[in-house]
């Protein structure tokens, strides 16, 4: 079985587009595009909002409210929005499936980014904040030059957790039917072509790990060494973000 999966993945014909069938390269690109758009929109919404709530202490109920969104079953919301929206699109277009998928992905990505940004700003030590104010910084300067850089580690863990959830859920969008790496999982299942199905699973897992690694590298070179306490050459860890986000969730729960 494992060697069959390996053969499926290493066959160059599966990577190219064939007769009316998209290859791995095309689906990988589609998967990354859907995920990137969703994370970008969520970041544009949640980051300023989280900074504002953390800085002013106003509107904390929004953080709690978005956290309750996590109890919703993703597949259910995806199917619900699809049957609501897709009948309004006719002809050869993917928009009927793409728009509900992007809405669900953005809804998924907002809670981790928002709550982690808020928690990050909240966790900045009062001493640092007071010192900044004493040096004559205005409110917005304190936010830009002290609170934001200090909360970057938590913001990154929220961003990484959001990215992983988006990549995972973009896979399920293939069930609708939309392109992306999930295509191979659901098509393999429908055709009882298990090497294809398992190969699709391998690709999704690799994409998730690779994305987390890239974000970990970006985090390493953007977070100040004074904040991360990284004065030695420690290696970059992949996969810590999801767990770190859960600890944040726990803190909110207790």
């Amino acid at each position: 079985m494992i060697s069959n999966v390996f053969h499926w993945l290493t066959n160059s014909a599966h990577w190219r587009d064939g007769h009316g069938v998209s290859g791995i390269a095309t689906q990988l690109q589609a998967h990354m595009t859907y995920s990137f758009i969703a994370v970008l929109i969520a970041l544009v919404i949640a980051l300023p909002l989280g900074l504002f709530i953390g800085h002013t202490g106003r509107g904390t109920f929004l953080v709690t409210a978005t956290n309750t969104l996590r109890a919703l079953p993703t597949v259910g919301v995806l199917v619900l929005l699809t049957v609501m929206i897709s009948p309004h699109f006719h002809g050869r277009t993917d928009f009927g499936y793409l728009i509900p998928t992007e809405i669900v992905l953005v809804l998924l990505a907002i809670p981790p980014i928002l709550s982690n940004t808020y928690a990050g700003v909240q966790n900045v030590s009062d001493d640092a904040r007071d010192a900044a104010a004493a040096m004559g910084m205005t409110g917005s300067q304190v936010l830009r030059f002290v609170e934001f850089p200090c909360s970057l580690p938590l913001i990154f863990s929220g961003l990484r957790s959001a990215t992983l959830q988006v990549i995972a859920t973009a896979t399920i969008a293939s069930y609708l039917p939309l392109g992306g790496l999930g295509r191979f999982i659901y098509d393999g299942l429908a055709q009882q072509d298990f090497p294809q199905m398992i190969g699709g699973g391998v690709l999704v897992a690799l994409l998730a790990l690779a994305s987390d690694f890239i974000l970990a590298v970006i985090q390493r070179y953007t977070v100040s060494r004074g904040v991360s306490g990284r004065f030695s050459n420690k290696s970059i860890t992949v996969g810590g973000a999801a767990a770190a986000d859960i600890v944040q969730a726990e803190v909110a729960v207790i």
Partner: protein
Amino acid sequence: MKVADPVASSSPWHFWAYFNAHLHQDLTWLWDHVWLSALPVAVGLVIALPLGWLAHRYRWIYPPMLSIAGLLYTIPSIALFVLVPPIFGLKALDPLQVPIALSVYSVALLVRVVADGLASVPDDVVQAATAMGFGPFTRLVKVELPIAVPVISAGLRVATVSNVSMVAIAGTIGLSNLGQLFTTGFQLSSPTAYYPPIVLGIVLCVALALAFDLTIVLANRFLTPWRRAVQGR
């Protein structure tokens, strides 16, 4: 226009009529969803307790064990579902693949929670217990674990609530559970939308997640009576 038969209506608000009309099928799916969500967390806790204790007792195990747990947690659920059979030597579609995959997630999440929970026990409490003559094992069972209950139960809440959502994802690859309501609704929604099964599925999933959450909160209160005594003072 008045709708005569709520069962035939496609209005989202007639999900309850749909539930009653397909009671037997829906209850089977609900029950499958309940045990598919709960059992992996129980299995995960049983495996995570000794692992978490090891990571707490021998600190050098903690970083590598957490890295492995983080890596496992990074793999998307649908990918892990299809990867479990070749790794564990099962058939490509095996009824055990989803419970095993969800147990792996639960272990990955709870190992950290158990280790952190045990680390949250104050040092003087451990020393007092030792001075009273507790051996390492009785001290763990009678002193350290009870004090770690609030942290562990917070982790259990996260694990069960995310499990409820992931079980529904397993429905898209044909497993019997509430996710089938979404598949049914999607198939019946051509050419026009048919909402009742979809809305019913969302309502039942959220209700199930809340019920699990409430159970764990109550169990936590029951297992830590001293916390109430302190709050009441």
